[in-house]
């Protein structure tokens, strides 16, 4: 198909480079420099999709980020699908594949269109709330259908082949928007030597200068743009970010910019390059030069393809050499829009008429149009368009804007393009992301940014400064001010000369009256993306939704990816008028990041796949891999879970590993335990205060188990701490608690007891820890060490230094299995060599590596707790039957002592840790199962505790569990029942929590 609407010349496109693309399966061509939207318009494609609610045919309205309808699905393959792309913001590239997201089965004959034709009656605002709320269970069904029909785009089903990343930027001045004001601001700030970032969402810098009729210093405005860019590129402190949308304005001048580095190049980014990048910018000062969005007028059938914004028509004609129609009617309330008339005439096309709502417009542009013989109907407006798939005529009638009445029958004008302009709304979105209510200015009929806590300057259109000369001056001054405030010396600059063309005031007109009244007029759309009509807004206010936020939520005005770019002010004006109040009294809704949609890829950056989360590995990881370990995530650590041999499942492997430890010797990598080196004359006193038990008398060479509580008396960590020298201790913590405990020690030392002389340093990563556990551990270790391992020379709960496998080691004789155990600590760099030698020597003893699962079973058999599994932040040491670890006579009121002496903590019927033996020894209680004393009681049952740990024990030949049970310590031998989700009930007997070797005869050998 040829480019029927392409003008013979003009535009910033390269006509020597023809690009082919497809839209909804049809092949088209465009030129390099086109956007997808300009290329579609060039090809005469009118219908771009179906509307969200009423399924009406929709076409392109705008030329930029404010486009509500042309929101398409892009992607030539499943993996490269991108939803929610505005055709007006997507550069054309060869082979681009675009499809409508709305419209099922296709945009030209749509199933919901039938519903949509009568949709006004069927789907009033609040329709979804009112209709689909009941029955509740059906919502899922409805939603699926509605989503499919409405078409919100879809994410790819395959992995995205492209890469995305973040870049952290810092600058003195961030300039948002590279239109006239933004360029001038960047120039002023850049020349001062400040670090400046200039970001603009479009393919090219220049903004309105790329399509303006005005000249700068007598030259085309685009020439000045090129000159400025060249100068900025030469300044070392200036970073230029084209195709970069500033999407969010966050606290303390932190802004996020979504830059599309390769989206204009092809379906996939060139190999080795990044497709999109999120710049996370911390800016000393922000200059917002976001400009304005032209506001459409709201009239009947204003959504039929062929209704465009006046300024957008100019952009398509001047920037892209595309005429989106043949016969133009302009409906306006201001002077500025008249430029489209001149642009249209310059393109050699007929202007049917201009309807100007004002009584006697005499501005320079108006006179220029008049001079060229254009028919201007004053005091009039287009009140209604005709056409289904394309505008065929427009009805222009006289209107009275005070009474909001149509005062003449008007006439139907034959045309295929209605351009409308209702004035210009400053783009205040970014200025409002952090709050700071916009302020209404009656003189420009728009909201401008109000005061805000941020260090920012608003320049140009956003500031209500509309004229080109004024915008340039405002921008330059604002850029200079921002740089000066950031501490830079500003250099004077000369601004280009602009021929001033004074404009007459805009008339306040938002909704154009219709002779049938709003409720019965053809649909007058306010928000085309969310299908919100003027009638719907009036209905919402009549139904009592008076607050602007309520109106928004009831009607969906400004929802979703649209963020009210075109509809917001018109909607407010209609709601205000309906309520008989002013627009500022109505106020505006909040705008939220992001300004336009951001792909998930850009949000994820490089934090995906194998880089999603940091993985921590021990020095012995490669050995575990080599020996077939299955790994478990413990915090960020990868710990061996179990080491299955051929054909073994978890249970078989764990049973074998447990037996090996109890019968001979096993090996555990305990390197992940937190280790904190503590030094200082007050180290002991500090330990006394943070542990529940006493540390004053722990001799050098000895180690002790300690419980740590929070101030409320509840256990929050545990571990063994060894006395290395009088003022020197090595504390161990749980794997998951390492960072938490170190911070806990620091907060008390730094904020409560700074007088205590003690320092803490993490040595978790420095030491690798190999635990040998089992009756043969002594014999095995003796083969590789010079340390005297004799029962008396090296008793339980002591430590020794010496060589192990030729490496200096600290060996701790402590046990988490109840067996004779040694924990060998060596500098991590040497751990692999030590392990290999131990493993070699261990062959004679069936040395068996075991993982966390076996560790859990073995310790549970001994009744040793795991903090966070057997405790949950509501368990005191006494609840754990560990009162032996509570120093009741320590002089200082240590952390937890006051808390655990509250009346509630002393109750005898608190949940206490006990053992459970299921009556059926082959049944393993599910961990977390709730327990009751009477399984026959009515539901809801009185729950008296829950299972905390539960395993099958190879050693015991039966299942067993640990549990917390109300008053459990005095209920030995009694029964509890665990009613399960599936209706079954497991019966168990309460017993002591130590199942194996209660006299500790195995570890004290």
């Amino acid at each position: 198909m040829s480019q029927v609407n392409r003008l013979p010349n003009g535009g910033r496109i390269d006509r020597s480079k023809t690009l082919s693309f497809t839209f909804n399966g049809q092949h088209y061509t465009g030129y390099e420099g086109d956007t997808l939207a300009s290329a579609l318009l060039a090809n005469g494609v009118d219908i771009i999709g179906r509307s969200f609610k009423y399924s009406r045919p929709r076409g392109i309205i705008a030329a930029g980020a404010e486009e509500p309808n042309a929101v398409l699905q892009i992607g030539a393959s499943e993996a490269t699908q991108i939803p929610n792309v505005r055709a007006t913001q997507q550069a054309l590239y060869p082979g681009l594949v675009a499809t409508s997201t709305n419209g099922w089965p296709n945009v030209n004959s749509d199933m919901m269109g039938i519903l949509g034709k009568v949709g006004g009656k069927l789907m009033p605002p609040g329709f979804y709330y009112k209709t689909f709320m009941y029955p509740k269970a059906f919502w899922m069904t409805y939603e699926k259908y509605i989503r499919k029909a409405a078409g919100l785009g879809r994410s790819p089903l395959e992995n995205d082949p492209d890469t995305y990343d973040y870049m952290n930027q810092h600058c003195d001045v961030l300039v948002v928007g590279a239109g006239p004001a933004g360029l001038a601001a960047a120039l002023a700030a850049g020349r001062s030597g400040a670090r400046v970032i200039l970001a603009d969402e479009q393919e090219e810098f220049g903004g309105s200068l790329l399509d303006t009729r005005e000249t700068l210093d007598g030259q085309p405005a685009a020439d000045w743009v090129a000159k400025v860019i060249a100068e900025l590129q030469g300044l070392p402190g200036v970073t230029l970010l084209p195709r970069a949308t500033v999407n969010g304005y966050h606290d303390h001048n932190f802004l996020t910019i979504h830059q599309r580095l390769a989206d204009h190049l092809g379906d996939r980014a060139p190999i080795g390059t990044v497709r999109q990048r999120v710049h996370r910018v911390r800016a000393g000062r922000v200059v917002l030069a976001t400009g304005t969005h032209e506001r459409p007028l709201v009239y009947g059938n204003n959504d039929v393809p062929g209704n465009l914004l006046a300024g957008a028509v100019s952009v398509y004609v001047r920037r892209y050499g595309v005429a989106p129609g043949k016969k133009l009617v302009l409906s306006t309330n201001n002077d500025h829009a008249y430029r489209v008339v001149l642009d249209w005439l310059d393109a050699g096309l007929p202007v049917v008429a201009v309807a100007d709502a004002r009584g006697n417009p005499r501005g320079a542009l108006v006179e220029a149009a008049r001079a060229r013989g254009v028919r201007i109907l004053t005091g009039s407006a287009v009140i209604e368009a005709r056409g289904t798939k394309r505008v065929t005529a427009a009805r222009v009638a006289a209107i009275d804007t005070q009474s909001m009445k149509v005062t003449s029958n008007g006439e139907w004008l034959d045309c295929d393009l209605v351009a409308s302009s209702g004035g210009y709304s400053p783009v205040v979105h970014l200025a409002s992301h952090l709050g700071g209510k916009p302020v209404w200015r009656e003189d420009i009929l728009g909201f401008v940014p109000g005061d805000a806590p941020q260090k920012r300057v608003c320049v140009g259109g956003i500031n209500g400064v509309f004229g080109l000369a004024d915008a340039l001056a405002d921008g330059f001054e604002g850029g200079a001010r921002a740089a000066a405030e950031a501490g830079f010396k500003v250099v004077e600059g000369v601004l280009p000369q602009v021929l001033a063309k004074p404009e007459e005031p805009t008339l306040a007109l938002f909704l154009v009256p219709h002779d049938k009244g709003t409720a019965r007029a053809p649909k007058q759309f306010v928000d085309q993306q969310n299908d919100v009509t003027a009638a719907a807004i009036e209905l919402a206010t009549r139904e009592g939704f008076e607050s602007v936020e309520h109106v928004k939520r009831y009607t969906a005005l400004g929802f979703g990816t649209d963020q009210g770019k075109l509809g917001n002010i018109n909607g407010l004006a209609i709601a205000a008028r309906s309520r008989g109040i002013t627009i500022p009294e109505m106020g505006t809704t909040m705008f939220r990041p992001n300004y336009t949609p951001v792909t998930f890829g850009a949000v994820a950056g490089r934090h995906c796949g194998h880089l999603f989360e940091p993985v921590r590995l021990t020095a012995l990881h490669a050995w575990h891999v080599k020996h077939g370990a299955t790994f478990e995530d413990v915090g960020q650590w990868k710990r061996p879970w179990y080491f299955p041999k051929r054909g073994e499942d978890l249970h078989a492997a764990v049973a074998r590993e447990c037996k090996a430890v109890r019968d001979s010797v096993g090996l555990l990598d305990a390197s992940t335990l937190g280790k904190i080196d503590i030094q200082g004359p007050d180290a002991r006193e500090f330990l006394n205060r943070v542990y529940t038990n006493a540390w004053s008398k722990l001799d050098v060479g000895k180690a002790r188990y300690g419980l740590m509580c929070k101030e409320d008396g509840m256990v929050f960590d545990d571990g063994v701490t060894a006395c290395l020298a009088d003022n020197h201790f090595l504390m161990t913590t749980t794997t998951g608690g390492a960072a938490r405990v170190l911070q806990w020690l620091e907060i008390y030392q730094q904020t409560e007891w700074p007088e205590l002389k003690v320092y803490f340093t993490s040595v978790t990563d420095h030491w690798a820890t190999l635990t040998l556990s089992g009756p043969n551990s002594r014999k095995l270790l003796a083969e590789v060490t010079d340390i005297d391992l004799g029962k008396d020379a090296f008793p339980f709960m002591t430590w020794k230094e010496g060589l192990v496998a030729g490496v200096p080691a600290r060996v701790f004789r402590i046990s988490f299995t109840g067996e004779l155990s040694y924990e060998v600590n060596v500098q991590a760099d040497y751990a692999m060599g030590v392990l290999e030698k131990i493993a070699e020597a261990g062959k004679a003893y069936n040395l068996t590596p075991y993982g966390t699962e076996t560790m859990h079973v073995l310790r549970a058999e001994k009744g040793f707790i795991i903090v966070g599994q057997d405790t949950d932040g509501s368990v005191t040491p006494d609840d754990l039957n560990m009162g032996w670890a509570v120093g009741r006579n320590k002089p200082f009121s240590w952390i937890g002592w006051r808390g655990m002496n509250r009346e509630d903590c002393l109750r005898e019927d608190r949940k206490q840790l006990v053992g459970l033996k299921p009556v059926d020894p082959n049944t393993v209680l599910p961990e977390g199962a709730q327990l009751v004393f009477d399984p026959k009681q009515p539901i809801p049952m009185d729950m008296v505790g829950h299972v905390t740990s539960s395993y099958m024990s190879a050693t015991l030949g039966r299942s067993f569990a640990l549990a917390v049970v109300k008053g459990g310590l005095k209920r030995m031998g009694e029964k509890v029942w665990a009613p399960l989700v599936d209706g079954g009930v497991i019966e168990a007997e309460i017993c002591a929590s130590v199942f194996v070797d209660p006299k500790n005869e195995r570890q004290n050998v």
Partner: protein
Amino acid sequence: MLQIFCPHCAELRSEEEFHASGQAHIPRPLDPAACTDEQWGTYMFFRDNPRGIHHELWIHAAGCRQYFNATRDTVTYEIFETYKIGEKPQVTAKPAGAVPEAAAREE
């Protein structure tokens, strides 16, 4: 994301390097045993939740690992000062020149 001046590193750093640790200037009772349950409960659980000036305890967790205090406006998120443990805040009322609350966020 806030930007916080660490009084030890003596420069502004990104919020992600810090953790907030609640209200500042809540000393642990010197003799917890002498506290009634009510006094102890107040120490443990009751915190101010002001609209406006708030003194907070922060730690520069990814930096120098030091705790310090910050005076922050809970409405505008302005941070008026940061100061070391043991020091007293200089800002206890909204300073002149601070952004008026009305201009700040409304949800």
